[in-house]
């Protein structure tokens, strides 16, 4: 059952921001996550601000330097199928095509995908958990087989549900954000907040702020990117473990590498140990073996999700073998 709310569909960004500034306002883009959040009563919403009249926020265009700008309202399907995205950033195309199900990809937007609320069953269920203002993380001592092995600090063990954020972060994408104080640009890698930084919210978005565009830098000449996702069932499911790679490879040697994990932490998780294990090295069996061990170096698994240790190792092995 949905709560009572008012609904506006402003046709300027200025009006949008004005509405969003109000207390308990929420954004409606594709609505695939919003409807569930409203129905489950996980947040207080008095006003819903639709972005759907903002035509500037749709579509994908190439920038002068060869990068891409993706409007926040572009559907996941459009991102997954766009030829420029496929050519320049296969990792983002793969990440997008791994999202949810075809129906949800047709309806959901890339901006919304980045701003999803956590999928922890305690958070979504009728449990007054820490993130909803309660005083306990039920998952910590409860059923946490789907939960985080990094970055939870034993405070809140959600995993971030997005499949597009890890490849975007690996590809050094930036987010253009508009808000009451004008616009600003935030790299995707700095967009998310760990539980230790803030328990109430998952992103740096302030009241009234909205992502308008995603800017991808021109791909380096030797860039290879990929995204791999393992899940409990093969469609309409979030990652148990995922791996986004953005590697620059010259003469078989990794000259620069950015590696992000999904299904691992409350935020898209940068795996610096893997980056260090492969940078400056050829992707041979020994390096891959090292990288596989490195991926779980700093992990802090819980009793029911230790399987993720070997799972991440396996994914790193498979994907480094595939990309070399």
């Amino acid at each position, binding site marked *: 059952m949905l709560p009572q709310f008012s609904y506006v569909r402003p046709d300027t960004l200025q009006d949008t921001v004005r509405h969003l500034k109000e207390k308990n306002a929420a954004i409606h883009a594709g609505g695939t996550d919003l409807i569930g959040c409203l129905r489950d009563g996980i947040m207080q919403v008095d006003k819903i601000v639709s972005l759907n009249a903002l035509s500037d926020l749709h579509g994908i265009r190439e920038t002068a330097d060869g990068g891409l700008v993706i409007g926040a309202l572009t559907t996941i399907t459009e991102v997954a199928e766009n030829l420029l995205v496929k050519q320049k950033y296969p990792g983002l195309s793969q990440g997008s095509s791994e999202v949810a199900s075809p129906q949800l990809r047709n309806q959901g937007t890339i901006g919304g995908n980045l701003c999803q609320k956590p999928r922890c069953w*305690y958070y979504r269920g009728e449990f007054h958990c820490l993130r909803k203002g309660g005083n306990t993380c039920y998952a910590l001592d409860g*059923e946490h087989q789907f939960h985080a092995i990094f970055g939870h600090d034993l405070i809140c063990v959600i995993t971030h549900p997005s499949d597009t954020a890890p490849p975007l972060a690996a590809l050094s994408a930036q987010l253009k954000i508009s808000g009451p104080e004008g616009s600003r640009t935030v790299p995707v890698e700095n967009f998310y907040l760990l539980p230790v930084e803030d328990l109430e919210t998952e992103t740096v978005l302030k009241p009234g702020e909205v992502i308008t565009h995603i800017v991808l830098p021109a791909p380096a000449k030797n860039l290879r990117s990929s995204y791999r996702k393992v899940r409990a069932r093969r469609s309409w*499911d979030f990652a148990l473990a995922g791996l986004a790679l953005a590697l620059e490879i010259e003469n078989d040697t990794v000259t620069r590498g950015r590696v992000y994990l999904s299904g691992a932490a409350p935020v898209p998780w940068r795996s610096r140990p893997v980056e260090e294990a492969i940078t400056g090295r050829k992707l041979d069996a020994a390096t891959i073996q090292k990288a596989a061990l490195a991926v779980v170096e700093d992990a802090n698994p819980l009793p029911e999700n230790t399987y993720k240790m070997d799972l991440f190792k396996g994914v790193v092995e498979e994907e480094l073998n595939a990309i070399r």
Partner: protein
Amino acid sequence: MAEQKNSYYTQGLSVPETPAPGEEPAFWKQTHVVGKRLPRVDAYERVSGAAVYPSDITLPNMIYGAVLRCPHPHANVTKVDVSRAKKMPGVRAVITGQTPEAKKLKWKYNDYSGPLFDTHCRFEGEAVAAVAADTHFQAWDAVRAIDVAYEVLPFVADHNKALSDDAPDIHDSGNLVGTDEYERGDVARGFDAADVVLEQEYHTQSELHTPMELHGCVAGWDKDRLTLWESTQGVYAVQSEIAEILNLPLSKVRVIGHYMGGGFGSKLKPGKYTVLAALLARQSGRPVKLILTREETYLCTGNRPASTMHLKAGVKKDGTLTACDFTCTGPSGAYPAGGTALVDWQIRDLYACDNVRCASKDVYINAGPARPFRAPGHPQASWALEQMMDDLADKIGMDPVALRLKNIPEISQGRNQPYTTTGLKQCIEKGAEQFGWKKAVERAKAHNQTDTHIKRGVGMGACVWFVGGGGPPSTVIIKLFRDGSVNLNMGASDIGTGTKTVMAMVAAEELGVAPEVIQIEHADTETTQYATPSGGSKTVPTESPTVRNAAIAVKRQLLEMASEDLNVPASDLDYEGAQIISRNDKNKRIKVTDVSRLKKRGVVVGVGYRGPNPPKKSVNPFAAQFCELAVNTKTGEMQILRFLSANDSGRVLDRLTYDNQVFGGIVMGIGFGMTEFRQLDARQTGRLCNRNWHDYKLPTALDVPVDMESLPIEIDDPEANNTGTKGLGEPVTIPTAAAIANALFMATGIRFTRAPVNPIEMRRHLTAKKEG
């Protein structure tokens, strides 16, 4: 009247011989309609949206119901104050345990009877109060405005802890629902005679019923007459239970259930929601629609109980099974509901074994009561038995198919009487042949020798279904109109299996009419005849012989009528296509539609009854399933590559709906074996964690193979009933998960004793194996 082309008495179609009065119809040797692939007679309605399901019902002045449910797994309700809710806008009825019309009412679970609103709430989701208001939103607002206080009690959510000393008593009698024991032969002697004895513990998780249409109904009163539009598997079952609870004559309760969106056993009976809707409708004087939410159905409309099983089995080197010793503990939930019902039947009956002992323990836990779930008990024990069979085969160096073929029983050992027919041997043999079992095993083993982390496996399992022969009572009426078109009237529900279609085919076969001129009237206690609910894979073997009998009754009357026109005795007459002719004088013939009394009367009404089943014989369907799959041993991901199901369910009536059942059963079995599990927060709050379709994981289209094959093993079974049919809906899902587990063993060398095996479980075991 002009004959319509292709409608009445289709040209050239022969009609089965009409048995003389008092004689049983002969077994169909050759059929013209039956056995074909016919699309559903109601396909247009279903696809176009014209079909009206209970969820679609909208009546003038109809209002909406909602139920306040206990959020705790175990609690005493100490206060229910509805004064604020009653004053909310749009609210027209509020019912609690203190409402006079509800106070005296009882609600039953098997032989347990308690108050409709019990202040002692024994599971999360138990009803505490109900409201009805002009809109859905107002009803839920009113539910939230009810001031209710609980004394929260300690709970037990794990069936393996239910009988421990520190578990709280859920009922005054304790937490044991009951035990069941069975023994034949001498198990100890059997083990002594064995060359190999193995034992293993097995676990299966609780599965939740997830029919597409939610549980619920619309209830409306007309003076003292109640009409219910209920999403149900059996309108007469709902009628009798509601009439009993509300103390009404059967004639004052009409239940309509033309279309319904699936039940899988959870809609064999009315729900408490049905009674609440009726009470709200009476109090408000308006029809009330009460359709539960998915979250509510996951809490309180049933489940397949979890199981903890132990199986010890002995075998001789030549493959002869010498003994089986089986125990099982399973939870009914908060009330007696068959927590271990039929769980040992595979052990008792499937394979030949002289020495068998079974013991099961049904226990209470603080969770929603179980309800029958497609082949109750069977997939659980199949998970244990079929894996054990493979382990025994492995130990004695025998092929799993050969071991099973070595142990085909001659009779139903569980009942100590013969089967009318058993296709177990053919299902295994022909299934293995069609699947290419030997080659597939060789191929998988050769593949696994190569340097790859993607391993392959093939596996199989067989089964018997406990019932599936159907039986009386059933009454069907067929009306033949003067133009030869037909009305078929039966009480049975079509729960999505194609019942209407196959019954039209049976009538068409017997009467020689085209199935599309048959109008079906069904599942309405006011206008159609008594039928038991569609469950237990019994609808086809119960209703199709009845339909045939009704058609024969029509034909017999027409012969009598024609004898007046032709001036020969009826015993000399029979059908030839669209005509009735004299056997002795082929010149004496009359078109059926020219028969004078048919023309005058306008209709012939034939009544058919379901005759008895054969005495001292058991009618059971059998199956064997085979699968091939691949496992990624780095990530634990699995892909089922193909599945084959060989089914002995007697005669195939409609090959299309038959195959639909087979594929649906495999898909559901994949859910049981690989994706679905109820997760209770057993160590903290006892509440349900996964109450939506993301967290409760049904298999998706990508989780099931494109390559699914249905292989009917049709064995003539004239003894079973006059159509030679046996049930299909349940055997198709019994051995699926076990076949998968056996294939996983070949791929990984790991015995997966806990269902479901998802990538989490797989990855855990791969790690455990690596670490030794």
